[in-house]
């Protein structure tokens, strides 16, 4: 979904950067290119990069220190590597710090960060606040504060929560939304419900079809139709509940392609985002 949001933004003419966190030797699953630390163009107006804590810190040191090359021995040392791998919240804070830099950079109109899953997203978003509380003074404190202010800034940042139309997923998304707006004092963008089953039938049709004495072929079709009806009905109920709580909600239908084609899937989602998000600005 993050890829689709970035693609939609880029195709609307905004200079857009998609930031992911993934192993440097892996191809991005939707874009098919390897995401490097340094942003690279994947489409007109659309750059991709992958951030990690150590690279972000190295870049920071190179900027902050005079004669930065002198410190590479320190940053590349095993001792420091061990520290950065295990230090509390280090990875998250450095990544968010890098995103702060990218947001501050006038090169991009929009930066889309592909964040972690629900429970872990809450932990990550809390890191600047936790760090700020644990470290009361000094550069680390100031950087944490700076990042926190960016995340809380209504003009700069919106947290877009993506969920499936399943009871458990919607409950988690709803809890995250309350946490983000309450305890973290951040601001939400649209809530996106992905892979929504389009309702193809109404109850009277399904009941009539179920009562039909039919051939094996029609029986199988009715079974598929019935499953579709039940699924779509349940999803509609969950979505209605979520919409009552979060009116700014975008539904993206399940897109069934004849073969696995991530790029085509992104195009399909972009098309739906463009039509389904009146306040997407």
């Amino acid at each position, binding site marked *: 979904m993050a890829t689709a949001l970035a693609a939609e933004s880029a195709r609307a003419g905004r200079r857009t950067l998609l930031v992911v*966190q993934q*192993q440097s030797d892996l191809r991005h*699953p939707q874009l098919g290119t390897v995401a490097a630390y340094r942003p690279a163009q994947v489409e007109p107006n659309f750059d991709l990069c992958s951030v990690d804590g150590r690279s972000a*810190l190295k870049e920071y*040191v190179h900027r902050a*220190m005079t004669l930065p090359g002198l410190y590479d021995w*320190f940053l590349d*040392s*095993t*001792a*420091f590597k*061990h*520290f950065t*791998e*295990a230090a*509390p*919240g*280090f*990875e998250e804070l450095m990544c968010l710090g890098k995103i702060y830099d990218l947001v501050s950079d006038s090169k991009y109109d929009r930066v889309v960060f592909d964040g*972690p*899953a629900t*429970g872990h997203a*809450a*932990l990550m978003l809390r890191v600047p606040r*936790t760090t700020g*509380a*644990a*470290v009361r*003074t*000094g*550069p*680390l404190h100031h950087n944490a504060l700076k990042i926190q202010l960016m995340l809380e800034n209504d003009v700069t940042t919106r947290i877009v929560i993506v969920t499936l139309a*399943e*009871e*458990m997923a919607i409950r*988690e998304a709803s*809890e995250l939304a309350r946490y983000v707006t309450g305890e973290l004092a951040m601001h939400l963008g649209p809530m996106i419900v992905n892979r929504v089953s389009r309702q*193809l*039938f*109404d109850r*009277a049709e399904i009941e009539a*079809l179920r009562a*039909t*004495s*039919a*051939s094996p*072929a*029609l029986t*199988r*079709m009715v*079974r598929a*139709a019935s*499953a*579709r009806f*039940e699924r779509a009905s*349940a999803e509609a109920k969950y979505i209605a509940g979520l919409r009552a709580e979060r009116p700014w909600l975008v539904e993206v239908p399940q897109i*069934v*392609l004849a*073969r*696995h084609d991530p790029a085509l899937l992104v195009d399909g989602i972009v098309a739906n985002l463009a039509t389904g998000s009146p306040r997407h600005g």
Partner: protein
Amino acid sequence: MGESSALDLPELTRTRRVIVCCGGGGVGKTTTAAALGYLAAKNGRKVLVMTIDPARRLAQALGLDDLGHAPQRIETEALPGELHAMMLDTKRTFDSLIEQYAPSDAARETIFANRYYQHLSNSLAGSREFMAMEKVYEMAQTSTYDLLIVDTPPAQHALDFLEAPERLFDLFEGSFVNLLLQPYRVAGRISFDLFRRSSDRLLKVFERLTGYDVLADLSDFFLAFAGMSAGFKERSQRVLSMLRQPSTSFLLICAPEPASLSQVDRFFGRLTSDGMPIGGVVINRVHQADAVGDETSYNLTDGDVAAIKAAPDAKLGGIDLTHRLLAAYRDQLTLAALDRAAIEATDWARASLPVQRVPHFDRDLHSLVDIAAVAACLHSPRQSSTATAAT
């Protein structure tokens, strides 16, 4: 993929002491762990399912409002054995480890009072994973449960919970921390100040990045832990040794999508190189073509056409009922074909990796009845899928 051997999950749940469910996010790990627990209890075992997922999915899967750090028995009359569940509280587990390994009361109180510990023991990288393994080890040392099933947190890069203890010890024993502790070992914080002024280059760089207070506080933090490092490490090695026993099985859980399936390949490589016993792969949410037929079944009889015409036609979306019926059916077949293609592209047969496919359910799974339905699919490796695909 050629034909993989069937994964005999009933056998695993009857014979193993520990089952570890691992995989990426959103692939149904928690549901699988709960269903395995149900299956084991159905076979008369006393089983504990543990999760460290902060999103409370296990509680919801079992139809509970919440789960706590203490194991809770899931009340059901249908099971000859016992099903228990718990959600790990990382900080409490960390606290009890410190209680156990602190060399003195003073050292223990120093750690509990340390600001870093208070703020960050929950988010110390890898602490959740480390504490989960610690809890499994603790439980395995008692005879309270016959089987422990662990629902691990989603792993992206590797099997984080295997690497977590190593990272933690690399930190505690690394030269960077030793450097921080060195002046303290001489004469406490005053010495730290002098040492810093006299100045090691490494500390200078770090101080400039973080601030003096951070450095001094970190020194306090690591100094408090210094006496316990050996105990922690020994315990961690015992945990890893337990995981390598044949009485443990790792299950790789995934969805029938190319990205999820390739992640299993990576996990498989990592676990194998670590000498961990792999039970097999569980592929969740597989759309079943044989549940609805195949494309050759499109041909409707005259009777079928008449039956459809006789049904009320709401013309949803302006489309008549026949076309919508065909569309729903075609979608079902397409999804099944996509899943099949993705699974066949894997190379698990060559690796002799047993596989269990669990059908896609057309309803949400959030009660013990639902978990029982999933467990039924795990119960009979070959016939599982078709019976319960559409509900």
